[in-house]
């Protein structure tokens, strides 16, 4: 195995596009090193992107934020402005693993690892985040819900890697929240994850919403029917019931060692209600 630490995006792309063997991007390493240890993945080349300028930065951009690929969850949690604008995204990133894991893990890595149960992804999907992809043919933008195509699979081509995530400008009276179900209080992979993002008008009526569901299908789902249940309502009990039903209906889960189909379908609805209630309070400024 070879280790390289390029100092420009172009050098990284060239290495990743190179002919020989399996090349993997190394940012936080909290997925890659586990996969290497369990021999699920045996890379021929590891490309460490942390020494490329800009990778470790959070910058304001177009009223929103640009989060570099090597920004750790911990650093995300310490960024006051980002936390204020996107508390749901930040709390999701700060649920990945332990404090130790958050000291290295990145939301870009979380996205590109393409686990259906990734914690930050439902919140990123709900936020309408966009991935900036660098590759041999230049840069392109991809909505985050289009990055994963199945467990462990992404829509990235050879030589491409995600260099940053863009979070859009936040309209006033907006709030987002992420909740997950795990059997313990920490450390577990999400059995169900729900990200809810909504915007209210001056009268408290929901004018925009996005709902992301994790761990209930082969990839994280954007659930338009769930958003429809909220839009036009004051997010009252009836709207929350409809939201819960839409989320349960959208689930296409499996039985596995972390949960049964029935359990996931039921709990998706329960969490959607609770996450929407939190997002509502945040949108109201509480």
């Amino acid at each position, binding site marked *: *195995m070879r280790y390289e630490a390029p100092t420009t995006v172009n050098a990284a792309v060239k290495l990743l596009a190179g002919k020989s063997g399996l090349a993997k991007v190394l940012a936080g390493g909290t997925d890659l090193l586990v996969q290497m240890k369990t021999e699920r993945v045996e890379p021929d080349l590891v490309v460490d992107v942390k020494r490329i300028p800009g990778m470790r930065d959070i910058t304001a951009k177009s009223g929103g934020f640009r989060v570099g690929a090597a920004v750790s969850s911990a650093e995300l949690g310490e960024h006051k402005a980002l936390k204020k604008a996107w508390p749901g995204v930040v709390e999701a990133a700060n649920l990945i693993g332990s404090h130790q*894991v958050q000291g290295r893990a990145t939301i870009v890595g979380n996205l590109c690892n393409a686990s259906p149960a990734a914690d930050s992804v439902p919140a990123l999907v709900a936020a309408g985040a966009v991935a900036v992809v660098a590759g041999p043919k230049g840069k392109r933008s991809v909505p985050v819900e289009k990055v994963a195509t199945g467990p462990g699979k992404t829509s990235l081509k050879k030589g491409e890697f995600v260099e940053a995530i863009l979070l859009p400008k936040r309209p006033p009276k907006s709030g987002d929240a992420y909740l997950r179900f795990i059997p313990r209080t920490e450390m577990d992979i999400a059995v169900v994850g729900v990200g809810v993002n909504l915007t209210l008008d001056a009268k408290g009526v929901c004018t925009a919403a996005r709902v992301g569901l994790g761990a209930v299908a082969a990839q994280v789902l954007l659930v338009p029917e769930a958003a429809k249940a909220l839009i036009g309502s004051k997010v009252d009990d009836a709207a929350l019931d409809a939201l819960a039903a839409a989320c349960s209906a959208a689930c296409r889960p499996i039985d596995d060692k972390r949960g049964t189909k029935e359990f996931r379908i039921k709990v998706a609805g329960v969490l959607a209600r609770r996450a929407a209630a939190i997002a509502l309070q945040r949108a109201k400024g509480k």
Partner: protein
Amino acid sequence: MTMSRVHVSTTVNGDAVEYLCEADETLLDVLRDRLGLTGAKEGCGTGDCGACSVTIDGRLVCSCLVLGAEAEGHKIGTVEGIANGDKLHPLQRKFLEHAALQCGICTPGFLVAAKALLDHNPNPTETEIRFGLAGNLCRCTGYDKIVRAVQAAAAEMRKG
């Protein structure tokens, strides 16, 4: 598959250190097998137990999830660097006074994690301590005396 070795210059517990390591060696492997610093332990190798906890530039991490190569130019902190010569850190003293260790295998990880917690938040509530240390598994104590030791150390450190 041939390995190519990486030459690394880094700082461990304040001392300049150089080593050669395999590209796929973890920082934990390097600390234990090349630098003789066996305080960090491998409890799982997959970031689920915290027994390998160290700090990189003051940030708490699992050394089993970091390549030895990634340490280049950074400052690594391990349990061996917590005491100041023969002066134990308040956390170390309180762990002993409060019987916060039985077998002791998780203790280095807990000390590194607790120190990082208190460096960041000198006045944590019990809940903040429990969630702050959730990445460190202990099988012997049930955590009760560990939490009390951290509370006692924090109180002493706040007095200055």
